[in-house]
């Protein structure tokens, strides 16, 4: 019992919300493209350049806010490049996304070398991080539960508040509706004079905006530093969540909370002396299991047909042996 008490407490919940925020932001960004019918595997790269340029902007200007703006602009540039190639030139989404991810990784490393002369990471006093937001009165009202709602950096609030807004956005706004229509039935959009190109560009850029915020949160949120490949797969986790949530904001939230919890829980386990390399794999294992469990039923047709034909071949071979007892009467 004692161990459980140590494991599961308010601090764990708080840590869950904190680790959920960046994945949630980038996944919500990806929900725009997913709903618009674009498979956006470039989230990782957009997040990474967001993180890098947020640090850069923060150092140069001395303002966290300007840092965030720089991060967002950088992510938007990546999102625009993605949209130009995928929407206008109809290049393969996966190839373009991967290429931009690789570009983001390499570019941040070489820029780091060129500007700061270091490899590995940028740390320093000159990086101005985002302030923590203390909600007035929280401590009086909630006592020891106050850290649940108060004291996060701003992006955490942005991420969670964005969820209901997105629900409303897809249901009740014209742009949200058009994004859904373009993703679900492009020929219907075309027939009604809705420009598929414009809607997809808009969705890509909205995605870049949130991915940039997510990146800025990584490098200016709880830790104020940039390290190589700092997004460390969060963008891909977001892609995984998007695949089984189909971009639905509430399902995205659920998926992100699951990963956030796994992440926070694994950090917690580390303090109990489990080997850290095993523990760091926990969130990814959760991702694998969740993906498998949730997408098993909606496997693409081609996989189901392949399985069926394999079964058929097998059953043809074994047929003579079993004809006697499988009369379907």
């Amino acid at each position, binding site marked *: 019992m004692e161990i459980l008490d140590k494991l599961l407490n308010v601090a764990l919940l708080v840590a869950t919300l904190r680790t959920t925020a960046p994945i949630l932001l980038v996944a919500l960004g990806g929900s725009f493209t997913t709903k618009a019918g674009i498979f956006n595997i470039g989230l990782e790269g957009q997040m990474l350049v967001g993180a890098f340029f947020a640090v850069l902007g923060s150092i140069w200007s001395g303002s966290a806010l300007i840092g965030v703006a720089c991060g967002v602009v950088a992510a938007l540039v990546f999102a625009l490049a993605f949209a130009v190639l995928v929407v206008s030139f109809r290049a393969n989404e996966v190839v373009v996304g991967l290429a931009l991810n690789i570009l983001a990784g390499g570019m941040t490393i070489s820029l780091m070398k060129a500007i700061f002369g270091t490899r590995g990471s940028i740390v320093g006093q000159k990086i101005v991080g985002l302030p923590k937001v203390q909600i007035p009165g929280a401590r009086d009202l909630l006592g020891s539960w106050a850290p649940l709602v108060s004291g996060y950096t701003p992006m955490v609030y942005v991420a969670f508040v964005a969820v209901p807004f997105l629900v*409303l956005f897809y249901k009740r706004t014209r742009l949200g509706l058009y994004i859904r229509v373009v993703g679900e*039935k492009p020929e*219907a959009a075309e027939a009604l004079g809705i420009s598929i190109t414009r809607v997809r560009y808009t969705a890509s850029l909205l995605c870049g905006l949130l991915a940039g915020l997510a990146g800025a949160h990584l490098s200016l949120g709880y830790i104020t530093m940039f390290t190589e490949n700092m997004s460390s797969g969060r963008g891909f986790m977001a892609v995984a969540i998007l695949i089984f949530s189909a971009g639905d904001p509430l399902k995205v939230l659920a998926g992100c909370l699951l990963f956030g919890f796994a992440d926070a829980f694994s950090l917690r386990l580390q303090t109990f002396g489990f080997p850290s390399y095993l523990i760091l794999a926990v969130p990814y294992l959760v991702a694998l299991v969740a993906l498998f469990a949730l997408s098993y039923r909606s496997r693409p047709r081609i996989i189901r047909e392949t399985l069926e034909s394999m079964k*058929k071949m097998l059953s043809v071979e074994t*047929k003579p042996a079993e004809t006697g007892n499988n009369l379907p009467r």
Partner: protein
Amino acid sequence: MSDTSPAKRQETTSPAENAVELIDITKRFGAFVANERVNLRVKRGEIHAIIGENGAGKTTLMNILFGLLQPDEGRIVLNGRETIVTDPATAIDAGLGMVHQHFKLVPSLSVADNVFLGMEIRRNGLIDQAAQIEKTRELSERFGLKVEPQERVSLLSVGIEQRIEILKVLARGARTIILDEPTAVLTPQESRELFQTLRGFVADGMTVIFISHHLEEVMEVSDTVTVLRHGKHVATRPTAELTKDDLVRMMVGRNVSFDRRRRTKTAGEVVLDVKNLWARDERRLPALRDASFTVRAGEIVGIAGVAGNGQTELAEVLAGLRPASHGSAMLKGRDLTALTPAAIRDAGFAHVPGDRMVRGVDGSASISSNLLMGRQFKAPWSRNGVLDWDGVAKQAVEMIKRFDIRARGPEDTVKRLSGGNIQKVVLAREFTNDADFLLIDQPTRGVDIGAQESIHDEIMRQRAAGRAVLVISVQLDELLTLADRILVMFNGRIMGEVEGDSADSERIGMMMAGLNASAASEVAA
């Protein structure tokens, strides 16, 4: 003109007698002339049917009228005013509305959302769903098109989807409505309801243009008929002055008969011998139950039945696309149920599948590639394991000619062709394989009359050449025309067999409804 009230008359924007006039419209696609100096005059307040075979240029003409295509020559006059219809928006502004053959609804949205998509009612920047639902209900009641505005489209039947498409057009203020083969997807009851709605429209002073190749319904519902053939205007006449035979003659350009084909008895040895065959459907329930029959060389056996009574499963088991759970199907001594589809074809089996776009052709490939499929390792298509593309093209040109496939050439993409011509591509490939056994599932589904006749001719030719033919069709007329014997399926079972020469459709109908052969004869007698 109709007996509309003065108030209604004032609503119409112009006093011109013709709602739509197309004058000397010509449209070419490369060397192919889809419309050649076509004239169409549609009077206000009438139901005007446009008929013609597949590829006669009906849809092209309507796409030009609606601004989806630009004519190479000719003029368009809408409500007495000459108009250049650059895009659908212009056409909609001029009071035109088009209900396409393939619906363009968004399944996850509600009926009301779909009706107002692209012209949402908004309040404070948000979509006002209550107002949209209210307006949809109003329209639905005013025009007698019953829908439930809040329901999600994915849950609705095709007939209701069509109503929503019509409501979409009405919500945009259309006074002239174009329907492209509206009944192709409807049940007879739904068609009847649709016709009633259309009559309501014209009583209201509106105009309906109706594309079809279904003669009965043209006779039933239209006031005036325009016939197109090979892209040219043949005639425009009041329907009342015409008979069905006149229409067929004008459409096809000659007399077409769908009487029973004359034949000499040629049945030879047994080619296909099916014994106690069982199979399950996707839900693992028995869908084919204990089917036993034979097909002889030089004989056409028909399988009749309402769709979904095990015919599909039977065809798939024979073609090796579905495992049999019990029984055998011997093709000249080899058991098809133990072979792969490729081995089945090699054993002398040709298959014209029921769903040609899924299993019959690769829509995005060329005609010549589609004609090649399945024999790419054989001469004269390939030599020493290398494809001979010149040979392939030569074969393709020959088959296009022999089977009268209307296309721009062997490199034309298959999905651009009309349904009848795609079917001919499948037939051309399957009938030139020298297979002993032909399985033809729905030979003329979605195929126009002229092409139907030529497909029937081709099937009879195969019979005369000593092939064993199994024809599955939901159109009883077709089986009465072709088959030497007709087997009737119900609920996965073969209910009985009728000789083609003495077949009477009433008795077959009884068996299709589930009465067994002896009971059916008693009732019929």
